[in-house]
């Protein structure tokens, strides 16, 4: 059982990264549907850097940078040139999937030493939970750290307030003198960096090789997850474990001889997300508090 929970935990990590990054972008009012493309760029760069420099830690860095750069492409068009966010995001996914395949071609067939696990002394010896919670690679700790920082940033800092203001009403934020586009640029780039980290986790830990399109739709799940979490960082954590849990449950169920069609299980997260959307929408106060009102809307700066 412990090993199964561990698998769930690791499967959730890319989702936590990508979804919490997208959460920041969406909180600033930008819907970037290109998560899949950014994750792929992160994955290929992480793998390439690790195999060139021989260190998976360099890979983490490369994944983050590549994700942020890919997001910057999106920002140039969707923010700078005010192109439609939905269309630009889809274009980014196509572009990222292609470019990652191109960049990764020389690395196909190679393998790297994945990230080592770093047991936290003392804590790891706690019975039952110790091994489950405190015996992981650095990115697992990082993902939790980011969730905490993001939650703190959004609610406790002035910059977080500005970010939310921009997402809730870019016109008022602009009237107050905030640089809407600059805020969004930072938010989108951060989102890209996190998606890059999420992508990097695949070759660095989950399956240490590179192959085209290896994210296989996890970027889209991350998008669902943001909504499922109703734009709250803490719920990303719960949601990612739930989404990851369902994936693993479906596989484990088969190994144990269950006969529920796996497709029906796989549908659950999406249906749950829709239910959450309805609940949020019905509870106006809650909706106003968290869901960014300007999500997906174009802001044009004219002086």
């Amino acid at each position, binding site marked *: 059982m412990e*090993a199964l929970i561990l*698998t769930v935990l690791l*499967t959730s990590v890319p989702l936590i990264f990508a979804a919490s990054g997208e959460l920041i972008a969406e909180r600033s009012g930008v819907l970037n549907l290109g998560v899949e493309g950014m994750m792929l760029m992160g994955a290929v760069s992480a793998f390439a850097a690790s195999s060139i420099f021989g260190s998976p830690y360099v890979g983490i860095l490369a994944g983050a940078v590549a994700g942020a750069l890919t997001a910057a492409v999106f920002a140039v068009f969707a923010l700078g040139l005010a192109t439609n966010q939905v269309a630009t995001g889809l274009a980014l996914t196509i572009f990222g999937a292609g470019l990652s395949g191109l960049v990764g071609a020389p690395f196909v067939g190679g393998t790297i030493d994945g990230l080592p696990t770093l047991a936290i002394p003392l804590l790891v010896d706690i019975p039952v939970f110790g091994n489950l919670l405190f015996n992981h690679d650095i990115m697992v700790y990082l993902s939790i750290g980011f969730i905490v920082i993001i939650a703190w940033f959004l609610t406790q800092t002035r910059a977080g307030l500005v970010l939310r203001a921009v997402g809730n009403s870019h016109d008022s934020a602009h009237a107050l003198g905030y640089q809407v586009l600059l805020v969004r640029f930072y938010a989108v780039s951060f989102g890209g960096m996190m998606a890059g980290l999420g992508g990097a986790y695949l070759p660095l830990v*989950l399956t240490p090789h590179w192959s085209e399109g290896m994210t296989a739709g996890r970027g889209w799940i991350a998008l669902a997850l943001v909504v499922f979490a109703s734009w709250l960082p803490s719920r990303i954590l719960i949601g990612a474990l739930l989404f990851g849990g369902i994936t693993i449950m479906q596989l*484990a169920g088969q190994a144990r001889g269950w006969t529920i069609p796996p497709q029906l299980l796989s549908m659950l997260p999406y249906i749950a997300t829709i239910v959450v959307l309805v609940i949020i929408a019905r509870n106006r106060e809650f909706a106003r508090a968290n869901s960014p009102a300007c999500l997906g809307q174009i802001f044009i700066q004219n002086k």
Partner: protein
Amino acid sequence: MNNKIVIAVLGAAILGAVYWMTTGEKASQVVEKSDGAVKVGFVYLTTPGDHGWTYAHELGRQQVEKHFGNKVKTSYVENVPEGPDAARIIRELAKKGNSIIFTTSFGYMDPTIKVAKEFPNVKFEHISGYKRAANVATGNIRYYEGRYVQGVVAGLTTKSNKIGYLASFPIPEVIQGINAFALGLRSVNPDANLSVIWVNSWYDPVKEADAAKVHIAEGADILAQHTDSPAMLQAAEKAGVLGFGQASDMKAFAPKAQLFSSVNNWGPHYINKISKMIDGTWTTGDGPDHWAGNDWVGMSDDYLVLTPFENMSADVAKAAAKVAADIKSGNNKIFTGPIKDNTGKIRVPAGKTLNDGELFSTLNYYVEGVKGKIPG
């Protein structure tokens, strides 16, 4: 720019197009001439970088190039989805003057048959299907022979008596593989069991890795796969368990975990069929038994090759080599009764051996030693 100019230009373009289309040759008769060398086309389901199924075909294509030199010119199209695009691409290869076209996934069966009707002078080779036509041959490898040997090695090596198997789709080829594995397993270890996870994909590395980890978490200490990526072996390597590679040698990905790989060696088949096409003796491969045809071969012809036995004791390696030799020589027919299904019912009586047709059409159950039920 003036609007009228724009309209005039557009109008002229449309008129020109209409003229060109009506004066063109009859559309379906256009075939480009090849420049001396015989052109051979390949259609791949994924990219050769999958390191499994498509990679094995790519190695076969490279053998063709090496064997024929500049007498043959090959080209391939990768990532071709099993749908209308497949027909369009096969057709395009035919029109580009390819004399023989290998379509290397089951899902290309109907598109291949459809396009073949339009190009009676082009030869088509569909891998792993069962429909033939005057110019469509089928070819396949007896993958299950290698899986029987895998089962023997697993049975002699396992300590937990739990074997994890990753499967793609419940098609005959895969069911044969699971059952052959289980027969091999039970032939040496009556206590060992096989549990199967259907990944519902040929190629999804992360899901394959997840499924492998689930098997390991459930106590499996040996893994086998009928999916294409090296992810399962990498998961095994990391967890310190053992496993078998699929379709091509995956040792590079898991030097400590790979017991051996059953390698699909397509080169001889391709070279054979291309040579026959060139000297005019090409046949559709239809044999006395429609299912198998004449081109369903395995270890005996080195179409299925086992990589060196590693990461196992010398005794096990010796036993495995003996079994492999028996299969190769035809002494071990694998699907020979008595065979019980996993509910204990006798499905094949003692003394009877399933023929090729029966392997396709009657093997719709798991044999003894496999847990669960075939889905669908």
